[in-house]
């Protein structure tokens, strides 16, 4: 079974530029998560999708971050414009969670973003 795919693996941009990350979850997984992991900290959930709908985006900085999962499969996370404090690893995870279930999340390798 193929794992969660993410691209690019690394990205360096200057502040105020825009950037986009892509994630393709494990086939058949209805739930997709985007996390931000700042160096020295645990992952922080940014947004959770169930199929193509948003379940929770309460921790997503909506003034600059956006995410979509239009067809309920792959997803894109965008930052516009980027700030220095956005430097982090962005992790995508998926699970076969159904409502009320207990999920085991499978993580991709992450995209390491450096904002200069």
């Amino acid at each position, binding site marked *: 079974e193929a794992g969660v795919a993410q691209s690019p693996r690394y990205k360096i941009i200057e502040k105020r530029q825009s950037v986009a990350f892509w994630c393709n979850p494990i086939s058949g997984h209805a739930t997709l998560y985007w996390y931000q992991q700042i160096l020295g900290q*645990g*992952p922080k959930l940014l947004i959770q999708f169930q199929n193509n709908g948003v379940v*929770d985006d309460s921790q997503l900085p909506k003034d600059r971050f956006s995410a979509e999962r239009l067809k309920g499969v792959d997803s894109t996370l965008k930052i516009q414009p980027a700030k220095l404090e956005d430097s982090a690893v962005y992790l995508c*995870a998926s699970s076969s*969670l159904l409502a009320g279930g*207990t999920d*085991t999340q499978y993580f*991709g390798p992450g995209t390491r973003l450096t904002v200069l």
Partner: protein
Amino acid sequence: AQSVAQPEDQVNVAEGNPLTVKCTYSVSGNPYLFWYVQYPNRGLQFLLKYITGDNLVKGSYGFEAEFNKSQTSFHLKKPSALVSDSALYFCAVRDRETGGSYIPTFGRGTSLIVHP
């Protein structure tokens, strides 16, 4: 609100010795508890989870964890450490009573170093 504490930034152990990585949690209701491992430049990998039932949970690679409700702890253990176990370990908690949102909270991580 829910929270997770991993009181040790780093744990050092000799190969062949038992290891313990500590985790304590706080939730308003009953918890779901998880352990993940992160190797350098890779995403998080699921190790084990506690949902309900037996307080001793066995997981991947010979790891196990014991749920202790009175001490609100979920320490990760392994009887005999391997050098290849050296990695970053994350504990995570989710409140079982959260309803439709499944936001997990991760600890800051504990770096496990196993010396030959």
